[in-house]
């Protein structure tokens, strides 16, 4: 009996000492962080934390009716220090409770910091055990991260979650890229693919998540507009649905809105005899006609065929613009073509991997083939006739 007890105590002791859970902190002892902004201030870093007041958030129904309508449900605290870790700790002089940043919904990186390189700052976020790999990362275009984090939204009491949701909507739009910390680290670390992060823009009383920030190594080099971003999303298979505006065949000023339902891209890498990489991207999309401005005069089959052709052209244009810009302007292989080359021709890749982005990538031939399908034309097959 005594031996059994001793074994039991020993096992418990081993468990307590050899596992990570040694410290319990109650939920009430934590301040819940929902958004983290990282700015550059000279040679120091300014970390901005958006801390939620849970009671103000959850008492939405009764609380807002009771009074104090304009009261914010969150607090923004920022602190300047040499490292992120020190800045976060430094905040404890301004916040009474330990900051719990596993709950961070979004991490905003300022343009300035991105331009100077993210390598030095990503380390903490990856190394620390409390950061959440599922936090989405976004670059604040033309503004500071602090301003984004401070932004108040009328629709939501948790701005961090609001931004996160708008980024997540990208799969229905394709105008920005949803990327979390883990993927960001992967894109940074993988050979033959450059980092690209979605961008957030400040608007009058809100923000817009549109566009893409293109990185070369770890430094920001430029931006895609939203159509180029959609091209990027098509090629990298990130799109689930999107509305594509297609000109009408006979009256080009009138537009047809096609709702994409399905999109899949297939990449084929070829190496020509003169050691040139040729990449063929085969896109298969299908969608429904969702909106049509011009009155349809042809029969429905002809109309669908024309629309399909125009749709193929439109998508092809998006993709080609994106590729061209990344090749010529940024010289940054954000699509990860290099990875495919490595998969197909590892020996060739070894010989070019050092100069891939600068010399090889801008000159490779990329062919985009789009195969579109119109599935349905909506509830009405013809426009209503105004008489």
């Amino acid at each position, binding site marked *: 009996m005594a031996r059994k007890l001793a074994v*039991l105590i020993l*096992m*418990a002791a081993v*468990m*307590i000492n050899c*596992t990570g*859970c040694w*410290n*319990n*902190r*109650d*939920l*009430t002892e*934590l301040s*819940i962080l929902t958004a983290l902004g990282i700015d550059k201030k000279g040679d120091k870093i300014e970390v901005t934390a958006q801390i*939620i007041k*849970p*009671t103000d*958030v*959850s*008492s939405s129904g009764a609380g807002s009716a009771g009074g104090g309508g304009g009261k914010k449900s969150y607090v923004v605290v920022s602190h300047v220090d040499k490292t992120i870790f020190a800045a976060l700790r430094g905040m404890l002089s301004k916040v009474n409770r330990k900051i*719990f940043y*596993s*709950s961070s*919904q979004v991490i905003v990186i300022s343009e300035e910091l991105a331009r100077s390189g993210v390598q030095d700052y990503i380390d903490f976020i990856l190394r620390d055990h*409390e950061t*959440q790999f599922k936090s989405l990362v976004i670059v604040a275009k033309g503004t500071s991260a602090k301003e984004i984090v401070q932004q108040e939204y009328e629709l939501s009491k*948790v701005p961090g*979650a609001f931004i996160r949701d708008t980024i997540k909507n990208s799969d229905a739009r394709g105008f920005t890229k949803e990327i979390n910390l883990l993927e960001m680290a992967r894109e940074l670390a993988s050979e033959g693919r450059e980092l690209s992060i979605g961008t957030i823009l400040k608007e009058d009383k809100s923000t817009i998540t549109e566009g893409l920030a293109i990185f070369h190594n770890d430094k920001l080099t430029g931006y895609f507009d939203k159509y180029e971003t959609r091209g990027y999303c098509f090629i990298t298979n990130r799109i689930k649905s999107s509305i594509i505006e297609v000109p009408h065949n006979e009256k080009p000023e009138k537009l047809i809105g096609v709702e994409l339902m399905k999109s899949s891209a297939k990449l084929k890498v070829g190496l020509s005899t003169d050691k040139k990489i040729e990449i063929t991207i085969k896109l298969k999309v299908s969608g429904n006609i969702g909106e049509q401005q011009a009155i349809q005069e042809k029969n429905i089959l002809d109309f669908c065929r024309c629309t399909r052709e125009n749709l193929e052209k439109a998508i092809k244009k998006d993709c080609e613009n994106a590729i061209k810009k990344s090749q010529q302007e940024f010289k940054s292989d954000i699509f990860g073509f290099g990875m495919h080359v490595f998969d197909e021709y590892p020996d060739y890749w070894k010989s070019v991997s050092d100069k891939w982005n600068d010399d090889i990538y801008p000159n490779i031939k990329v062919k985009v083939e789009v195969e579109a399908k119109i599935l349905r034309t909506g509830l009405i097959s013809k426009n209503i006739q105004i008489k």
Partner: protein
Amino acid sequence: MFNFIKKKTTFKSLKTYDNKIKNQAASEKKSEKASAKKSKKEDEIPEAIEEVKKRLNEEFSLCSDFVVREIVLGNTGKRVIIACIDGYFDKAILAENIIEPIVNFKADIKENELIIHLKNKILSISDLKDLTSFSDSVSGILSGDVAVYIDGEHTAFKLGLKAPEKRPVGEPDTETSLKGSREGFSENLRTNTVLLRRRIKNTKFKIESMRIGRKTNTDIIICYVEGIVSQEVVQEVKDRLEQINIDAVIASGYLEQFIQDGRYPLFPVVGNSEKPDKVAAKILEGRVAILVDGTPTVLTVPYMMIESFQAQEDYFGEYYFASLMRLLRVFSFFISVYLPGLYVAVTAFHQTIIPFKLMLTMAATREGIPFSAFLEALIMVVTFEILREAGLRMPRAIGQAVSIVGAIVLGDAAVSAGIASAPLVIIAALSGICSFIVPPLMKSGAVTRLIILIAANIMGLMGIGFVTFMVTIYLCNKKSFGVPYLSPFAPLRTSGMKDALIITPIWKMYTRPASLAKGRDYHRTTGKPHRNRGEQDG
């Protein structure tokens, strides 16, 4: 042949425990031994009626309920003593059927045929037994029989007239069922055996009796169906019962603690039931039932954990619904054991795994509460136990007040006063209510819940895992009368799965539980033994 009963190991604990009691009652024993020695010499019933009378009066001195009546045996002029305890039976029957025939005895027969004549022609009593030892006659009197001593004879009679006051056979409060029999066992042993006998009309259904308790001399009955039950188990039950050294058996729970496997079992290893149909079904599966006089609760062994989740209604059709309910019972048992611990572990250690929106809600409800989640959970869980216990102990009329105080004052007010958070009140109430769904495991569940709660506070999910491992190992190791406690899960018996988590229709349950009916009458329809073990048992 059968190595599933490890006699040496199972009895080791029992024996040591017995020794303790033996030491405690050493002085008592000695005096009893002395008296036993004395009675050996004089245990015969004395021929002289005066001697009988003297000894009876000695034995029953200061027993006001003891009645001794001296009459004359008709025309023979022999003196007869009738001794009994008052109140066990109707006095009119005694006067009509015993005293009258004896007094009016008129026959001209030889001296040596007198006894036979008396037995066969005079005493019109169905239950008549010869007695040769005086101590037997005394215990007979004590159990409510009438003893008849005749002058000049070494033999006495024991006449069973017993028709005691008894509670009518009613529905037991502890186990109610919507369908099926509403009969319940009563305090009277004979009534109880009849309830069982009526359900198993078979001579193979054996009802063996014995007595336990040096002071109380309580009647115990062991029931089983010969041919279905494993004889090893029957022998084991008898052995364990015989080894019990106790002066008083007031309830079946006394015996339960002596015969159960292990000295301090955390989970019940002996079945309890007040329903004859349930006990009959268990006996027919190959179990042994132990009935104790004066207790409506019948013990059944061996007991497996899955029996705790079985209910009578499971077998009354709608097997799909019964399966669903069985799963629900298992699920709610886990809820009742784990929920408070999980809440504490998640809020204190692993906030990361809470979905963000849920975390906001939880954080908001916990805002301003002065206690840690653990303390809060402990308060609520203990409060629930207090309320439960109070509801049980109180007179029924006040029960309503308890529920009102419990629900409104302790629940609602605690939340609005900021002493407990609303989710925790829900968790404590849910885990408490879930524990009622599986009544046999309610007590062990409450203890396990507390252990898990404490472990969760020290080590988080790791602690919960630790306790779970320990308890699982303990349960896997546990045996009840040689049958693995977790069967049919560990060891896995696929045939037993028909009545485990999922219930198959009765016509599909054509075999008895393999862990119980080893070899013998395994197939219900054909009565054939198990194909692998058939030859092993006779």
